[in-house]
């Protein structure tokens, strides 16, 4: 029997944002190959920014035009539904601001191949050479981030995961200062990331064996017809969960996060802390809600433990940190835990689910923007040897540079979720969604879920302690005589901080428009 091969249909219009980013990345690689060295930066920067802004405009056009597809596109490989479009928009905004940070001078090594401290390195620095490859690499990473949460089958999701991660492994190792730390971060991220994606893949293999397909809807369907306690299914779901939880940095898979965030160049840390987290939470939601939606009796208790552990580990270990980037990394772990509370809030009705999805989407947006702003401030406080990482160096910053310290204090308050900042509404939305689900009749976790919200509130209180500690340090202690210098920010960095601040304040005072947008995106839930 010769099966007829059908011509695949690809909805180019719907996929245009994704294709544009990948096309620009490929053009960027060609520029590296053919353009003369002195021209490269002046080609790469506009190319990268224009493609990201263009992709964002295409996302907006799709939404405004009202042609959000109601079923999967590209032969079922990708699902460009409301939540996916919202996540795309968030990732593209975050990546534009991160590229502005990347564009700033002095973050990236002159020649990655030169051994630190060698004559080669000095020569490369003197000749003013630079790795403009960071732009196409960042574009590939962003392309992967767009693909990952929109994937409608596990193979596309795996490819998206790798396309997102591989450039990030490299970018982590390209810091100009403290290169040993940077290379170590890169090695650790790579080995652990590859390890976790192998788990993801084996989980995919098991689910394929169970369902005979890797499409998320197919797995869900196989579950409703076949048994739900097949060992293949349970092993597959556990291994898949390991891979996904590693990417969002949930405990007990959080160990890489502080090391990598500290060692990586700060603009890349900003990209990872915002974009990767948004993409990974999107993918996690799709797997747990679409493919394993019928299995929630099994996965919700597991995620309960993971969420509680993540919030507590993130908040408690952050207190003991002495490095500002490490502290922000633990704070990011705690926030991943808060997001997992939202993932648990699965209602019996689609309307209820839309409420939790809206909360998560809103949280992702406000957290991502605030994170980028905070890391942008970190790039400006400098010691002779690079950024002033140690917290003691930040003492008295409020007296030397009140505006910068004030802005940073505001971002920290937003992380802590103080009212009148965007972070407050994010946390409020996620916790209310979880409480609503807990009080719903027939919820399998019921009071346990209420307990998780209590754990979340306690973790927020612990987290508020170390945020406020930094603020006290900045404003109420004397600056050291040889304190850090405040770099004159470039126009790009000023723009990043201004945008982050505006969004954090604006959404904090007047969250309705963003909440409405998130609600519209969430109302249709995930297409299958």
């Amino acid at each position, binding site marked *: 029997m010769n099966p007829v091969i059908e011509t695949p249909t690809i909805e180019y219009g719907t996929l245009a944002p994704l294709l544009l980013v990948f096309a620009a990345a490929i053009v960027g690689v060609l520029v590296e190959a053919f353009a003369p060295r002195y021209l490269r930066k002046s080609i790469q920067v506009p190319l990268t920014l224009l493609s990201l802004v263009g992709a964002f405009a295409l996302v907006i056009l799709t939404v405004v035009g009202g042609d959000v597809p109601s079923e999967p596109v590209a032969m079922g490989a990708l699902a460009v539904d409301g939540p996916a479009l919202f996540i795309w928009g968030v990732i593209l905004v975050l990546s534009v601001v991160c590229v502005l940070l990347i564009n700033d001078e002095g973050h990236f090594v002159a020649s990655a*191949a030169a051994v630190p401290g060698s004559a080669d390195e000095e020569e490369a620095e003197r000749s003013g050479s630079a790795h403009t490859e960071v732009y196409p690499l960042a574009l590939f990473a962003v392309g992967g981030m767009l693909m990952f949460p929109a994937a409608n089958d596990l193979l596309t999701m795996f490819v998206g995961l790798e396309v997102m991660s591989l450039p990030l492994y490299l970018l982590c190792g390209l810091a100009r200062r403290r290169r040993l730390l940077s290379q170590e971060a*890169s090695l650790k991220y790579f080995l652990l990331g590859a390890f976790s994606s192998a788990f993801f893949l084996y989980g995919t293999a098991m689910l394929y064996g169970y369902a005979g397909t890797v499409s998320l809807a197919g797995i869900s369907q196989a579950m409703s017809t076949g048994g739900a306690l097949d060992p293949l299914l349970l092993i597959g779901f556990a291994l898949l969960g390991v891979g996904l939880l590693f990417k969002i940095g949930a405990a007990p898979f959080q160990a890489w996060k502080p090391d990598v965030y500290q060692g990586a160049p700060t603009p890349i840390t900003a990209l990872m802390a915002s974009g990767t987290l948004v993409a990974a939470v999107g993918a996690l939601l799709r797997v747990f809600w679409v493919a394993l939606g019928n299995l929630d009796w099994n996965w919700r208790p597991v995620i309960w433990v993971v969420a509680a552990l993540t919030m507590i580990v993130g908040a408690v270990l952050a207190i003991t940190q002495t490095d500002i980037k490490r502290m922000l990394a633990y704070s990011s772990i705690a926030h991943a835990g808060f997001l997992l509370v939202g993932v648990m809030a699965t209602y019996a009705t689609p309307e209820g689910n839309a409420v939790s999805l809206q909360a998560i989407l809103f949280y992702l947006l406000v957290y991502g923007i605030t994170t980028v702003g905070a890391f942008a401030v970190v790039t400006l406080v400098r010691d002779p040897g690079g950024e002033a990482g140690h917290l003691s160096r930040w003492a008295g910053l409020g007296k030397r540079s009140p505006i910068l310290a004030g802005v940073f204090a505001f971002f920290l308050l937003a992380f802590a979720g103080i009212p009148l900042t965007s972070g407050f509404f994010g946390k409020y939305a996620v916790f209310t969604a979880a409480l609503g689900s807990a009080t719903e009749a027939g919820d399998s976790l019921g009071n346990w879920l209420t307990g998780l919200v209590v754990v979340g509130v306690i973790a927020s209180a612990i987290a508020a302690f170390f945020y406020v500690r930094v603020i006290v340090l900045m404003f109420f202690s004397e600056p050291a005589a040889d304190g850090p210098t405040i770099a004159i920010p470039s126009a790009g960095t000023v723009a990043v901080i201004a945008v982050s601040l505006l969004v954090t304040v604006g959404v904090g005072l007047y969250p309705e428009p963003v909440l409405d947008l998130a609600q519209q995106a969430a109302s249709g839930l995930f297409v299958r």
Partner: protein
Amino acid sequence: MTTHYLILSGLLFAIGAMGVLIRRNAIVVFMCVELMLNACNLAFVTFARQVGNLEGQIIAFFVMVVAAAEVVVGLAIIVTIFRTRRSASVDDANLLKY
């Protein structure tokens, strides 16, 4: 019978995972990760035979391509760190902690 292949794939995966945890040389750790990916491939191909469609075999090709890309990135990182430290041991890379 496909069961034997699945058992072999499970064994290979476990050997790879143990290797990642136990071995200290970054190159060997990385080879163990590759072993895990190949165990996945074996599982995919076996399941393709078992459930009777071609999807699993096609996925195996995708995995090979991804693994090849991963080798490029991974060896670049390991070689860089070896040139800096004259050692590829993962225990020596210990500046980032606590």
